[in-house]
């Protein structure tokens, strides 16, 4: 029986009944028409941690790649989110703090329409103790985009969602663009504790 729903226009999704210590829960791959967002819903609380592994590209035209916003449990109140970043753009390292700025979890960096064809950004996002109902939820991400040019970036991100609710849904949308491009793929995994 499917335990997870996938909501996105023109996305091919696969459902899987998990049974191991590191399970693939669901995967979405964007089709030729693009997709405005990717949603993992009805996430089971039977794991200890979640991991999302993704490659992505958006329809943003302006140079500079793109970022994404992941809305947790439909909560788009920026006051409930906080971000710290460590970035390297090939010439300098920098660090930023953005409390109560973005209406979701900030994830970067993704390819954009301004990048050469076939270039995709990537990110690996760990969501720790996501089903706990007594702690705020923290997200750790390592991501980046290399374009064989100065318009590249590698980044560490630490996001906080200030809610004690168990995470049951995640909706990921492009930050500056309006659509994920074809071949973008997000895969959600569950990691069990002993």
């Amino acid at each position, binding site marked *: 029986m499917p335990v997870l729903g996938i909501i996105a226009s023109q996305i091919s999704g696969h459902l*899987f009944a998990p049974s191991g210590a590191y399970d693939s829960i669901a995967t979405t791959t964007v089709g030729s028409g693009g997709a405005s967002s990717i949603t993992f819903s009805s996430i089971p609380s039977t794991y200890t941690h979640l991991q999302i592994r993704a*490659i992505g590209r958006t329809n943003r035209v302006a140079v500079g790649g793109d970022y994404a916003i992941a809305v947790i449990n439909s909560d788009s109140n920026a006051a409930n989110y906080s971000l710290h970043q460590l970035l390297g753009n090939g010439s300098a390292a920098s660090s930023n703090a953005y409390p109560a700025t973005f209406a979701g979890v900030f994830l970067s960096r993704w390819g954009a329409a301004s990048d050469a064809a*076939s270039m995709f950004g990537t990110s690996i996002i760990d969501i720790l103790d996501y089903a706990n109902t007594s702690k705020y939820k923290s997200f750790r991400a*390592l991501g980046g985009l290399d374009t064989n040019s100065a318009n590249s970036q590698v980044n560490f991100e630490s996001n906080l969602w200030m809610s004690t609710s168990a995470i049951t849904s995640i909706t990921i949308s492009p930050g500056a663009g309006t659509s994920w491009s074809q071949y973008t793929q997000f*895969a959600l*995994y569950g990691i069990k504790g002993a």
Partner: protein
Amino acid sequence: MAAGNTYVALATTTLGTAASSVTFSSISGSYTDLLLVTQGNMSASGASIYLEINGDTASNYSFTYIYGSGSAAASSRASNNSTGIDALGFSSGFSTGQLMTINHFMNYSNATTYKTVLCRGSDTGSEVGATVGLWRSTSAITSIKVKNTGSNFTVGHTFSLYGILAA
């Protein structure tokens, strides 16, 4: 998909004699991502660890990295590189400690996108770094050569390759 096949150990090499490179070949295209973990030491300082894909020695690699040496963080990059992707992401290569790299080859078996690699490297004696690398090819990755640029991997250095399978 059979249970337990999401995160699979594909191959492991532990060096019995020093070597300048280790190659994983005939990699199955049955997974979504590959994870390569290396740990050990090198015979000389200043060298780095590069990842060569599918035997490609043309200028199809680029990478951007960030690193910290204990005094400051910095970033650098390379374009049109023919050696491969720098997995350590250091300013000056190996120094004196134990080396570790964890390298993610994302969506390695598709035939439509260029391949992106995320690397974490550390030398317990000098630096810590992270790299995003690009191999400008839409070919599926079928071999990975881990290269020591300038010295040898010493006896006991381990190289482990895993496959991660999305549903």
